[in-house]
């Protein structure tokens, strides 16, 4: 990722958030990626409405859907935890702030990985 700070800003440190633009930039990058992914997923969800087990499995297990679904869930959860971090930084304080943020990041990682494993299992017939 590009470092968008000026040399002076880099020399002085990471700004008031002690984080530079890394968080902000990651939020935008994931947002842009999610534009086509969410449109695709919303349309798919509507089309799958009322579908039975076999249809849903066949859909999830097709190669293109596997790739797009892993991207959607992975990037979606990443974008979500970045956003929730900002919300928590606004409304919580002290030790609890750290506890909540760590919890949110852990939950996102666990659900993301579990979903990817589930998708691969369906696709590769585990």
């Amino acid at each position, binding site marked *: 990722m590009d470092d968008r700070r000026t040399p002076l800003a880099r020399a002085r440190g990471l700004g008031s958030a002690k984080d530079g633009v890394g968080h902000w930039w990651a939020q935008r990058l994931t947002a842009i990626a999610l534009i086509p992914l969410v449109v695709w997923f919303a349309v798919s*969800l509507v089309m799958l409405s009322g579908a039975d*087990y076999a249809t849903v499995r066949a859909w999830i297990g097709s190669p293109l859907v596997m790739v797009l679904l892993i991207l959607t869930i992975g990037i979606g*959860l990443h974008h979500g935890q970045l956003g*929730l971090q900002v919300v928590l930084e606004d409304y919580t304080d002290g030790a609890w702030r750290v506890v909540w943020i760590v919890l949110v990041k852990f939950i996102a990682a666990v659900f993301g990985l579990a979903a990817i494993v589930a998708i691969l299992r369906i696709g590769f017939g585990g």
Partner: protein
Amino acid sequence: MSVVNRPSNRPLSPHLQIYRWQLTSVLSILHRATGIALSVGALYLATWVMYAAAGPRAYALFQDFNASILGRIVLGGWLFSAFYHLCNGIRHLFWDACYGFELKDAYRSGWIVVAVSLLATVLSWIVGLRLV
């Protein structure tokens, strides 16, 4: 940022009870609210593929919930949240690129976001519930 150093009697503004609501602030609050809802919704989607991987009996439980009134509300609410957060997120990206900051433009883009996200939601409900 230590709690101890913070002055305790500072006035708070704006006060919620006397706050005049505007489209721009309502949409801003709604962006956050739908963002939080979608984060929970993302866990729900992750759970969905896990149930699908777990087998037909497990998946039947998930389907029963989706077919219930509460399930319909959750899925319908997810679709609205997704469309709204998507449209307003694109509005935010334009702001990030320094476009549309004039008050007139902010209101116009705001109403466009409201119209498009409601239209997409109603359309997806009609198609999803096989009403046509």
